[in-house]
């Protein structure tokens, strides 16, 4: 392609399908552009005015033609729609066995937390070949977590979790961008995702996480914030037991049910009045402003750890005595040249 790159590196499981869909639309577009341009240029020569009094033929139009050139583009458009929607559906459904990472956008940095307790800023280490689900939120304004080499992005919206997933297919270093304008250093809110071979990744994990896993930090917070005064494992407290609730429907006071996932836990902690568990009085205080995004994520991981059979998101256990040589040697690969 000469000196100008046309595609970013394709490094995730759906990157090549996004590229294929893109090339399909490029082909359709090129066809129509060339066809219409060729027609109008041909007419320009063929029907050029020969003498000043000449006038064009009187033609009203043609219903069959109008139908033809409405219906054919509609059919082609429906193919694009269907293919795009199918791909999108896959891009939005993280596989159940995904490993989980929390990401928080903040003017102007990306903070990542691994469930094992490792924290990173503007860098994200992930293993190759394993689906990874990122729960994304923001501490201030909108941001957008964008991995061009994985062909995916999601807005970071304050006050809620959004999920994005990918499975990296090639070890290497790739760009992380903030794609939603967020003020002064928007263009500096960039980082690197480092995709590693599983063994290297294990080594890297072993090197970090000195403050314990997220669940452990969450357990400590659970005591510090006095959650444990109401939520007893026995279910005898003023609040419901939080054991084994993940992934299950909970009956609400209004008669509806809700499924307990991260978004539900988040809302229960920050704004417990929004959904009241059936049979309880709404006396849980709001923790809005009392707990940071990191703390909240830790609390959620703690509560998830109370549902052992549903916890699929914890990473493979770290071999205790793994050597901690952790820098991956792959060169920066921003672009395919």
């Amino acid at each position, binding site marked *: 392609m000469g000196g100008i790159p046309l595609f970013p590196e394709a490094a995730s499981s759906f990157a090549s399908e996004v590229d294929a869909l893109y090339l399909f639309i490029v082909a359709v577009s090129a066809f129509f552009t060339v066809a219409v341009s060729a027609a109008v240029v041909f007419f320009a020569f063929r029907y050029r005015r020969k003498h000043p009094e000449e006038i064009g033929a009187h*033609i009203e139009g043609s219903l069959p033609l109008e139908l033809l050139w409405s219906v054919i583009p509609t059919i082609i458009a429906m193919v694009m*729609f269907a293919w795009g929607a199918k791909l999108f*559906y896959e891009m939005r459904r993280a596989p159940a066995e995904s490993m989980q990472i929390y990401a928080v956008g903040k003017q102007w940095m990306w903070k990542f937390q691994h469930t094992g307790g490792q924290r990173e800023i503007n860098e994200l280490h992930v293993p190759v070949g394993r689906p990874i689900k990122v729960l994304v939120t923001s501490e201030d304004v*909108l941001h957008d977590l964008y991995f061009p080499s994985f062909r995916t992005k999601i807005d970071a919206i304050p006050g809620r979790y959004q999920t994005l997933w990918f499975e990296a297919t090639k070890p290497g270093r790739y760009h992380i961008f903030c794609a939603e*304008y*967020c003020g002064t250093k928007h263009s500096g809110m960039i980082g690197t995702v480092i995709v590693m071979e599983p063994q290297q990744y294990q080594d890297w994990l072993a090197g970090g996480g000195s403050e314990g896993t997220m669940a452990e930090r969450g357990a400590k917070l659970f005591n510090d914030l006095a959650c444990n005064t109401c939520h007893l494992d026995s279910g005898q407290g003023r609040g419901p037991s939080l054991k084994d609730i993940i992934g299950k429907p909970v009956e609400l006071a209004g008669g509806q049910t809700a499924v307990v996932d991260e978004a539900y836990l988040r809302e229960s902690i920050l704004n417990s009045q929004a959904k009241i568990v059936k049979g309880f009085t709404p006396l849980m205080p709001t923790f809005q402003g009392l707990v940071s995004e990191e703390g909240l994520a830790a609390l959620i991981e703690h509560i998830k750890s109370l549902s052992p059979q549903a916890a699929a998101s914890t990473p493979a256990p770290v071999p205790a005595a793994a050597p901690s040589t952790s820098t991956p040697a792959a060169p920066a690969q921003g672009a395919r040249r």
Partner: protein
Amino acid sequence: METPVYPAHNYLSNGHGLKSWLLTKDHKRIAILYLISISAFFFLGGLFAVGIRLELTTPQGDLFQPDTYNKFFTLHGVIMVFFFLIPSVPAVLGNFLIPPMIGAKDLAFPRINLLSWYIYVIGGIFTLFAIVAGGVDTGWTFYTPYSSASSSTNVAATALGVFIAGFSSILTGLNFIVTIHRMRAPGLHWFKLPLFVWAHYATSLIQVLGTPVVAITIVMVFAERAFGFGIFDPQRGGDPVLFQHLFWFYSHPAVYIMILPALGVISEIVSTFSRKRIFGYSFVAFSSLAIAVFGFIVWAHHMFVAGITVYAAMVFSFLSFSVAIPSAVKVFNWSATLHRGSLSFEAPMLYVYGFFGLFLIGGLTGLFLATLGTDIHLHDTYFVVAHFHYIMVGGAIMGYLGGIHFWWPKMIGRMYSEFWSRISAILVFVGFNLTFFPQFVLGYMGMPRRYHMYPDEFQVLNVLSSGGAAVLGLGYLLPVIYLVYSIKYGEVAGNNPWGASGLEWRTQSPPLTENFLEVPTDIPEAYEYTPKVIREAKLV
């Protein structure tokens, strides 16, 4: 061929001095007032673009401070969208031409027409004040919570400016709707109207129905900044994404406010320069209305990654394709019009040919963005920037400039340089493609928009784009020179220099203040080209 004489009495000679202009109720003079003011804003918006393109020639972000750069792209967008593109074709060409095209002496409400210009100017002054007082840095989209809670720049003054200008747009729309319903000459029924008038009718509907929504949205941001109600603040139960729904509910249709009138211009020019009726007249007419209606149900295609559900995204993706079809239908009909026409290629037609290329690419690239699987990657990258510039600058400004060149002899009564006008049409086309085509590639490569600095691998394409912008700038400057020159020194144009069939060409050039001395009665079919039309134009 006889040499035409410049008419001694016309709307330009009817009253002299500033007061005769500032207090005029003549739709033609008001159009000229708009022409001058939007040109000034176009120039200002262009200056900011120069700043952007200069900064982006190097990856480091070394020319301006980041905040300065952010203000540049914000002001560029705000000015170009709200103070140039939205008023451009309707307020200048629509204002000038709708009455003569329908055989009327003026719009239905001449005073309101003047009022809408004053409102526009006041809105503009607020925005200029915001610039002088330090600028604004939210992007033209004013997304919350950045605009409501984080930015420390002059958001309120700018928002107020846009809010006020919106009323000008509503009033113009109302005026056109009433005029088109009530003021048509006897015998001029709907299907004899020029497609330019249909396009303005559809646009006016959007203006009247959509603009109040953006006005409310702006008031909410304003109130949020002033009183802190918490509407967009999740900590207090607000929703930051609500703003985007409201904003795009107006602003997606607003992109059609910017393009539909230009599509109307294209129909007029294509038919005149091929001396032929527009192929499939009623399909082209109704496609304008279809676009106006569908335009209101696609807004969330700007929000596929902004927290709408998977199923909502699918519905909005599907609906978005529905606006693409009427746009495609128009292009096919124009192309078919050329078939067996009698084509000639003066500057207006060159602009139309340029328009074909750019609008095609702009519209087709919309498909990449309406397709969910690709939009996730392309959203908020330079691909989107390239897409909407192809349509709004490539399409709408080509249409606007084509229209200015087409009706200039009617408006001023004199011709501009044929040679220079062709050169400028070609420069604009070439410069435009050089500037914006590389941005599609940049976008697919992953370069996000609104970036002051960028990784090195994006530099080659950015330099190419900045170089193209220089050519494009030249292409836009040339017409200013030769058009102004022609006001005094141009050859006298005569009533109908192109041999066009529309009613407006039956008036003298420049027209009398009351357009017609008598209401025209023998109304032809739209675009009726017969040897008689050419003979009466005294071209031979």
